[in-house]
């Protein structure tokens, strides 16, 4: 175990200003060093979003997790978004990264077309992605390639369609019936 994780007394690890990089600086540096990983950087509302080509997501996540100074070892959240059936690309997958050592946050975003809703699973990078990805698959129909256990999680196994898609009606396709 590294010393950074274990803090027996009540003191937050002190990081000097020179080695502190804001998420915005991290994104800019990534864009400069690995232009193939970053298609766009957006700074808004004090948060930084990196648009990632979907083929690169595993490489980028592994890099962000392992590189000293970045150390995004904690996947806070992973969620999908449907822009609507008329939009192309239609789906977004958001990855909210956090570092338990540096305490900074970063959002990665992958855009997916409707006819090819595949993206590589990041469960091999952070195991917590397992259930997040199952949820996104269940509710949006995004298929995470190489996921260890890609089954529906919230809805029943025989559910038809994906409930959080914009073209899925609020009350379902069929009127409720006991017949």
């Amino acid at each position: 175990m590294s010393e950074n994780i274990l803090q027996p007394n009540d003191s937050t690890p002190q990081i000097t200003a020179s080695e502190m990089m804001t998420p915005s600086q991290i994104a800019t540096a990534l864009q400069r060093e690995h232009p193939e990983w970053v298609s766009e950087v957006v700074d808004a509302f004090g948060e930084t979003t990196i648009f990632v080509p979907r083929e690169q997501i595993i490489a980028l996540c592994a890099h962000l997790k392992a590189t000293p100074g970045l150390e995004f070892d904690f996947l806070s959240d992973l969620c999908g978004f449907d822009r609507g059936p008329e939009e192309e690309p239609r789906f977004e997958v958001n990855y909210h990264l956090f570092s338990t050592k540096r305490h900074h946050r970063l959002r990665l975003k992958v855009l997916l077309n409707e006819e090819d809703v595949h993206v590589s699973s990041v469960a091999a990078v952070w195991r917590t992605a397992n259930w997040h990805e199952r949820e996104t698959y269940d509710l949006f129909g995004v298929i995470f390639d190489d996921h260890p256990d890609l089954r529906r999680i919230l809805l029943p196994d025989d559910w038809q369609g994906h409930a959080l898609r914009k073209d899925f009606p609020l009350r379902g396709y069929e009127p409720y019936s006991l017949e």
Partner: protein
Amino acid sequence: MSSSVADIPPQFEVVDRPLDTQMTISMGPQHPSTHGVLRLELVLDGEMVVKATPDIGYLHTGMEKLFEYRKYQQGIVITDRMDYLNPLGNNLAYVMAVEKLLQIEIPERAQVIRVMTCELQRIASHLVWLGTHALDIGAMTVFFYCFREREKIMNLIEAASGGRLTPSYFRIGGLMMDIPAGFERRVQQFQNELPKALDEFDKLVTGNRIFQKRTQGIGYISAEDAIDWGLSGPSLRGSGVHLDIRRVNPYSGYEKYDFEIPVEQDGDVWARYLVRMREMRESHKIVQQALSRLQPGSVKADAPKVVLPDREAMKTHMDALIHHFLIIAEGFDVPAGEVYQPIEASKGELGVYIKSTGGPKPARVHFRGPSFINLSALPQLARGAMVADIVAIIGSLDIVLGEIDR
């Protein structure tokens, strides 16, 4: 210490097979110790758990879909019903995310009341956890003492908001209304009584040899594994990770409060128990500081297009009446954009992701529920445990199925 990536989910790897027979049984969804409608598929070898697979979704009500069909302010009541033991925390995370999109400033008094009521709610949530956790392990008496103390907090929350389980007390831009006269005195009275009750719990449970034997060394998870599985809150701090969002990404003015972050190194059920017990005392400290910081002032932000006007102003001022009508009838426009707002809820990192494409309704609201992620680590925690320890391990994760299934 950390196991390899290849073993997600834990496959049928048998460590020890004394009887050379395996049996698959279903625990739940109606089992009293699963804290709601959770079903576990247990593969057993004798009394040993070879594999535990949680099956969730029995309480799924499509809340995230509902948000997309409601105005922003109407979403607040939905958040109450997720983690129903910590509704004010859910309110806070949601309204803070919307406030971030709107970029409005919250007055100091509203911030202090938010912190005070949220910390009271944290104590109430931990009291339910303590009562049910001890009950699961066989200590029945504690349950009644915990609910006696929780009732006092419920009465306080009811006095402020009018609701007990579903207060919906926070509003986008502040609070529903100011705390009633005499509220501070009632909180102080509770503050004076709580330490004695916590000492009582320590006598009843912490020093109890049976409770110790049932929890020590059970459900171990290392710091690296806990981070990898995304554990947060007391469940993470029980594994020796010094991390609290109130400290590292402060919000609502938490940086001005003096409190410690309890951390235990052992990573077992007992360590997670100790963390939560100590957290109640820290929350008690924060409530006391909030009481002393409470200054007269407004509890609503100066944003007439977002915050409902006072009733009196509405009766005398034409513009207030127009704003009231527009907010109720049409809602308010929120600029396009996306935010992720994490808070330290009683169970861990509660994150709210809101995507706005403009207009009065959100395009997407996603809740990163700490219970959902903490439960996903159960297969790791339960492997190799005895059947009777499963209830102790579930209890130590402090899950609420309303939040897991949403």
